[in-house]
């Protein structure tokens, strides 16, 4: 069913970049994120407009969608076969990014992954949510502890 797997940046403190960002989103935006990732995980290839290269950041790509009239982005890069590494999530309006240092963070986290200061962790998609913030992981694994 799913073609793609997602990974996310995990700091040495154990903080997971996308899980943390998701938690801070409004419920409606969280739902949009969940739907968006669920849908693109089922696609063989991502068209431009949904996944675009980031200018001046060779090898980095952004996943793009809009929710509540605000453009949302996840910066990352392609990992192994059909795997996308999500490094940071942000919103974007005009030329203003939230967080403003999103691109610097992207570089910083990539460096940390390279040096071992940070690592990659699997990102479980939220499918068929049955409870508040609870979903069934598509890989058949245990639900991660998401407090």
């Amino acid at each position, binding site marked *: *069913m799913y073609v793609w797997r997602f990974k996310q940046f995990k700091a040495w403190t154990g903080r997971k970049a996308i899980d943390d960002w998701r938690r801070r989103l*409004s*419920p*409606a*935006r*969280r*739902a*949009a994120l*969940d*739907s*968006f990732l669920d*849908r*693109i995980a*089922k*696609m*063989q290839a991502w*068209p431009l*407009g*949904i996944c675009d290269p980031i200018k001046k950041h060779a090898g980095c790509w952004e996943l*793009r*969608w*809009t*929710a509540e009239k605000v453009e*949302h982005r996840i910066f990352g890069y392609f990992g192994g076969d059909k795997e996308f590494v999500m490094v940071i999530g942000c919103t974007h309006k005009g030329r203003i990014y939230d967080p403003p240092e999103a691109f610097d963070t992207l570089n910083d986290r990539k460096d940390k992954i390279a040096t071992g200061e940070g690592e990659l962790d699997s990102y479980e998609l939220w*499918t*068929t*949510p*049955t*409870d*508040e*913030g609870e979903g069934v992981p598509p890989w058949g694994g245990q639900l991660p502890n998401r407090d």
Partner: protein
Amino acid sequence: MKEKAYRHGAVNSQIEIDLPLQIRALRKERGWTQPQLATQADMKQPRISGIEKPGATHFSLETLRRLAEAFDVALVVRFAPFGEFLEWSDRFSPDEFRAQSFEQELPTLEARCDLALGAGAELMAQLAEIPIGQGLRAELLSRQNPHRREPPSRIPSGAAAMALGAAA
């Protein structure tokens, strides 16, 4: 899902994220470019480009109706319980989404129509064989074909309905 704002956000996502992916899938299925779809839908190409980006467009029913007409597919807009919504959502895959145009679907529709007509004719033949009173037969046959001119039934309609159920 117990959180109302989340579940209605999910409903919104089905409109704003799934519809662009459906539109793109239908366009690709037909082998059309964005300008070609724009021509079919009497829109401009940049608008089609925006329409295909998840969340970028707030769809009006008129826009959807025009797109449905361009693809020559039906458009189903209705309220539904969340269970049904989730089931659809689970099954939806942008790459596998298909909706045949009316022309593509026509042989299937015709076959379905023939099948229904055949079943109706078979039932009529079976009814003709049933040893029942003249009045009841006339009632049953008139229910099969309301335009058929038969003498009015002499039996209560409730009994006829029971007999029809038994015959079916």
